[in-house]
């Protein structure tokens, strides 16, 4: 193999590793976070029911949305780190106080995941409520040799922290402590 061919090969590998595109990889990861909130479910649902309103989430600094709460609605969210993600609403069921959405435009600098779908739901729990937020996602680099910052562990850690921060903020807001 010539030096040129080797260099081109290395370049191709490098491009492959750094620009995976909106790749859905073959091995999904999961994250599930729950929080109990000392407020009735209706009050908790009122705080998060607008897909366009992410103001309860301290991890998000700005949200621009179109389409309301209908399937197909989109929101463009700016994370605390200044990076932007676009999400699309898939299913919205006010009766069961839940909605599911997915990542439409990935940004590995925002979150080191190449694709995700997530569902948030409010359920009664004793006198108060429980909010469950689950995510299914793929590591940032879906090749078989991801760098440490784009591997499965990095994706799970980032997604888990993202969900935790959001739920903690929701609890503080609904319980009137923020």
């Amino acid at each position, binding site marked *: 193999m010539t030096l040129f061919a080797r260099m081109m090969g290395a370049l191709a590998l490098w491009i492959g590793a750094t620009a995976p595109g909106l*790749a859905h990889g*073959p091995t999904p990861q999961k994250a599930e976070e729950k929080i109990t909130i000392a407020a009735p479910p209706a009050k908790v649902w009122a705080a998060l029911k607008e897909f366009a309103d992410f103001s309860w989430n301290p991890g998000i600094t700005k949200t621009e949305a179109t389409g309301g709460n209908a399937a197909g609605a989109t929101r463009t969210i700016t994370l605390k780190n200044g990076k932007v993600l676009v999400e699309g609403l898939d299913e919205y069921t006010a009766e069961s106080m839940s909605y599911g959405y997915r990542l439409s435009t990935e940004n590995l600098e925002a979150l080191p995941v190449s694709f995700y779908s997530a569902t948030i739901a409010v359920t009664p729990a004793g006198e108060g409520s429980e909010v469950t937020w689950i995510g299914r996602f793929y590591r940032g680099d879906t090749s078989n040799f991801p760098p440490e910052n784009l591997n499965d562990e990095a994706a799970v850690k980032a997604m888990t922290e993202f969900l935790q921060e959001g739920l903690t903020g929701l609890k503080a807001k609904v319980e009137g402590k923020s």
Partner: protein
Amino acid sequence: MRRNLSWMRAAALLSACLVYADVAGAAERIYVLSQTGAKLTEIGDEAGDALSSIALDKAPATLALAPDAPLAYVTHPDLGSVSVVDLAEQRVLRTIKMPGSPFGVAVASGGRLYVADWNGDEISVIETAGEKPARTVKAGRAPAHLLLTPNEKLLFVANRESNSVSAIRTEDLTIAATIPVGHAPFAIALSPDAKRLYVGNVQSGNVSVIDVEQLAVIETRKSGAMPYGAAVTPDGARVLITNQQSGSVAVLAGENGTPSSIRVGGYPEGIAIRADGRRAYVANWFSDDVSVLDLDSLKEIRRIKCPGGPRSVVISHRKP
């Protein structure tokens, strides 16, 4: 017997979705493949729980059953390998090293293996019985599930990132057609008469219906959010689609209309139907269980706990 044989092949060759019929007296066995738990588990119907598990290498994704041997072929995309599992002896016989990220798999009589390389955009063809070198066929981008017709003449490939299905002639490994479908095709299932191919399109939330003779889409039907698994009832009358994002199974019947929906566990993926058409089994990836569906009442009747991250369910009638 000829008819039974073709049914056997049809059934064994579906990977995430398996339809089975017409094998009187044969005992069916239900196998669940768990990705996180890295196990192939046989589940019982009456007992209502897991019977026995075979430990596998890391992160198995999909599997296919051999039509003429008690073998399962399991892909490991992260490891670049396929495990050959002996279902009778309940152990891994050997591991075949594969290029790239092997995902979808199909196996023909005589041990010819087709494996999709998710990141390499091609299908490897391996004669497991002989010494012949592996060959490859170019597919679309991110080839997902594979499916052989019962006569083993055509191999279908769902190309997730190119929004198409490839039909490959198995005789000479040439492309018979590249059929445009919906957005992000993943799971595929054939009708029992092999005249229709149903393709679940993950991102567009619908099912493309392909006429196998014309190799063209003749209809597109709404399914629900993120279809990830498909199976057809033995009478061909109903198509069951797992909607991952809504945690439900859509039942498409008749010509049109809104599909009925059955609530299942979290993020359902693979689905298989028994030969009598009365029970379906759904792998719930997020909730680590299998939903047992009664297809007469269209209700979930049971949940069976299994090792973490179940993605595929297959039904075999062989006596291992």
